[in-house]
């Protein structure tokens, strides 16, 4: 049995449109197979039947040669957690699914979750603002799968899903945005307040007060019924474009006013990431954000988006333990984190020195 390695997903490669603000774009389609009870209500033999049906239908398909099939019950908790941290599977698939599996393309940009909340969740994740491209990847794989399996579909209600919030297109499109300037100047609150009015949802990890940890928020569509896939994607795309513009303006204003202190913050972040001996994930994610802003503003040049994305993922507990090749408790993780960060920084420096 193959093992999950710590590898870079395509979205982590760090090149794409508006990559200085949009970390990644994702489109996920929920699908169910006609004639089978949805996973949440299905008995074990039924989820097993779906698992086998999907496996045998898609196993030998020529269009899917570069995909690997990963049954959840063959993976360790750490392997599963690392997949969650790279956004390739959901927490639900990792923890609670029966006969769950992941079909994943080699570049990790396209995959299918099997026996998640729905029988199938097809998803594509790409770097930068590439919602249309992510939808077309998802759409194409959806067509390939549909050659083999009949979907639960209703003329009026579209693709039938376990949760009524997904019914219709079954599409959830989302982008991960790095918005340090809008968060610093507190305009973020107003934006978060207006997005739900245009059918979008905003999420982030909030600390005390209004602080957003890591300055990363996710924006996604809420509506799936009554709009076509193209409308959903273009609505999200155009709103995200506006947010990008506002962040760019806010960054420029910040740069004009506080250039020296921003540079100082970025270089201090790099210093801490390189030399600290104990570090929580919370501290690390904030430092990576400071460093990213410094790089995006041209104040620091010794890093790049690929390295920043790698850091963002490897500081997480699952990936960290996978890299360390052993299980670690909280305290041990805070000691291991700086070790792995330093190694990644060193790898990057060697690469840059060699001029590759």
């Amino acid at each position, binding site marked *: 049995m193959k093992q999950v390695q710590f590898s870079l997903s395509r979205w982590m490669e760090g090149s794409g449109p508006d990559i200085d603000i949009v970390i990644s774009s994702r489109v996920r389609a929920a699908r169910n197979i*006609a004639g089978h009870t949805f996973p949440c209500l299905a008995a074990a033999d039924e989820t097993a039947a779906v698992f086998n049906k999907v496996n045998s239908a898609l196993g030998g398909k020529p269009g899917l040669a570069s995909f690997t099939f990963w049954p959840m019950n063959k993976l360790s908790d750490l392997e599963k957690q690392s997949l969650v941290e790279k956004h390739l599977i959901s927490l639900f698939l990792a923890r609670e699914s029966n006969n769950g599996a992941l079909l994943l393309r080699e570049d990790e940009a396209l995959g299918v979750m099997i026996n998640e909340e729905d029988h199938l969740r097809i998803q594509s994740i790409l770097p930068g603002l590439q919602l249309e491209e992510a939808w077309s990847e998802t759409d194409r794989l959806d067509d390939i799968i549909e050659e083999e399996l009949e979907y639960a579909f209703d003329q009026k209600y579209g693709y039938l899903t376990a949760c009524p919030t997904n019914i219709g297109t079954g599409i959830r499109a989302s982008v991960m945005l790095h918005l340090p300037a809008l968060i610093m100047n507190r305009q973020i609150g107003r934006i978060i307040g207006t997005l739900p009015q245009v059918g979008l949802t905003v999420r982030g990890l909030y600390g005390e007060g209004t602080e957003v940890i*890591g300055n990363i928020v996710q924006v996604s569509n809420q509506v799936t019924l009554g709009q076509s896939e193209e409308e959903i994607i273009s609505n999200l795309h155009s709103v995200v474009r506006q947010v990008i513009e506002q962040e760019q303006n806010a960054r420029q204003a910040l740069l004009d006013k506080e250039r020296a202190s921003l540079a100082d913050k970025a270089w201090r972040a790099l210093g801490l990431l390189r030399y600290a001996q104990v570090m929580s994930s919370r501290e690390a994610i904030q430092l990576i954000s400071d460093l990213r802003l410094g790089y995006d503003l041209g104040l620091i040049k010794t890093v790049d988006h690929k390295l920043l994305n790698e850091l963002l993922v490897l500081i997480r507990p699952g990936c960290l333990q996978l890299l360390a090749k052993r299980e670690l408790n909280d305290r041990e993780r805070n000691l291991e984190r700086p070790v792995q960060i330093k190694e990644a920084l060193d790898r990057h420096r060697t690469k840059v020195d060699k001029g590759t």
Partner: protein
Amino acid sequence: MLCQECRRAEANIHIVKQVNGKQTEINLCEQCARKKEELDFTFEPQFSLHKLFTSMLNQGLIGAREEKEAAALQCPTCKLTFAQFGQIGRLGCGSCVGAFEERLKPLLRRIHAGSTHTGKVPARARIRVRRLRELDKLKEELQQKVQKEEFEDAALLRDQIRDMEQEMSTESKGEKE
């Protein structure tokens, strides 16, 4: 207060979270809070269908007035009742929407932009929908021929319809296996 995650230990950590600008409080025990701190970076969906459902039920929008009748509604295929759906917030199979249609409509209206799917149609469904429409047209023609007493044409049409129906039913049987 008990931890809302494990429902076993005392909740001594209270996290205030903002989703869509609204504050929600999460009460956890230390162990669950530690797990959560690391896992929440995953941005799992947090839209609470259960809350919406309960509030709409309380407002009488999805049949609180005839509560018993609504709760007794049951999907003939997977046997999920409407009351159970309200608890778990998930439908059980492809027939549930049809079984609960009238009750789901207000809920769907509240969540979505419209009440009818306007997006992608799977190729298989496309073919079946097209053939069903063809079949309807043939049946209509048959009616007309019978009315006009053109029985020879009518017989031909009747055979054609029978063949088509047979073909479609064996196909759908094949798919189920």
